[in-house]
């Protein structure tokens, strides 16, 4: 298969590379399922699953979506996106902190004990 140079503005395709990525994606899919069959504790299983997914997603984005070597304007847009999306982290943090605070405040702890008693 010959790879032609793409017209201006379009990334040149590289079929050999696509096939290698395909193989890698398949291998990683099998890997992530195998890891899940180990029934790891959540503290290990969740990061492992997400890490493999991030690698797979990164491969697709970098090579199938030709993000590698993309124009810097696209990178700028994605940078803005990343910044804005970081705000989402504050929402789980809130759930975590509300729990923490109710553990630390002495009276709130009494309240929590009381709630447990009542339900």
């Amino acid at each position: 298969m010959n790879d032609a140079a793409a017209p201006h503005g379009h990334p040149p395709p590289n079929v050999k590379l696509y096939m290698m990525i395909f193989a890698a994606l398949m291998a990683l899919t099998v890997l992530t399922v195998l890891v899940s069959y180990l029934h790891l504790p959540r503290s290990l299983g969740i990061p492992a699953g997400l890490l493999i997914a991030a690698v797979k997603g990164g491969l697709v984005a970098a090579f199938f979506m030709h993000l590698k070597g993309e124009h810097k304007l696209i990178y700028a847009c994605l940078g803005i996106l990343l910044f804005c999306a970081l705000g989402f982290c504050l929402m789980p943090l809130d759930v975590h902190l509300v729990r923490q605070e109710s553990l630390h405040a002495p009276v709130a702890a009494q309240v929590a004990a009381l709630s447990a008693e009542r339900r």
Partner: protein
Amino acid sequence: MKSIYGWGLPVEASTYAKDVDFGIRLIHAAMFTIFILWAIFFVYLLVRYRRREGVPAKRDPEHHGIFSASLIPDLIVMLFEIALIFFYAIPVWSRIKGHAPDVPPANRIDVVAEQFAWNIHYPGADGKFGRTEMDKIHFSNPLGLDYSDPAAKDDIVLANELHLPTGRPTLIRLTSLDVIHSFWIPSFRIKQDIVPGMAIPLWVEPDRPGTYELSCAQLCGFAHSLMRATVIVQTPEDYAKWLKSAAPSVAAASTNTGQSW
């Protein structure tokens, strides 16, 4: 009785009301000062630089970049805000919301909000709240108290009437049966949303006996504006007397809790 409400802030009736009012007064004083100075400057500019024949506009000296003289007033505002944050907001906030004082069980009250009434639940003499069950909720038993539980026998349940003693903090546990309500006593300067599914602790130490008003501050349905309760603040002696007089009449109290609307 002379009204305790007027055109300004209501009477301060809790220990932290003064702290909240200090901020409101300080910020308003600053706001007025800034605005008046600013307005004088603004009007001066409009008059001084109005269009006149033969007087062309004078351009500012050329400058580039993002820094300009306009950032100087900004700096002053910023310093004021930094002072507010670190010397006022964060310390007072953590006093009111961050820490709750350690109180004996007798000083705890449950407030259960529902559309459109406030149910006040006192643990009674034993300091223990009786068990509540959802399927026991009935018009005559709005909290679903399980009277087979010995702890429930001496519990006091009131509708739309909250008694509080002065001189010691009371811990209030806020829950809601249905939608989000907000526990709002203007005279105490407290407001806390009550979220169903959460039990939110709130403490208050009233310091001025009298009768106040508890309102719902979060839209909770068609009769939102009628959802109110009376707050009766009593001296510790009067409060103890009231507790005694209220306790034996449990059965009566629980049957008389018709919803006000």
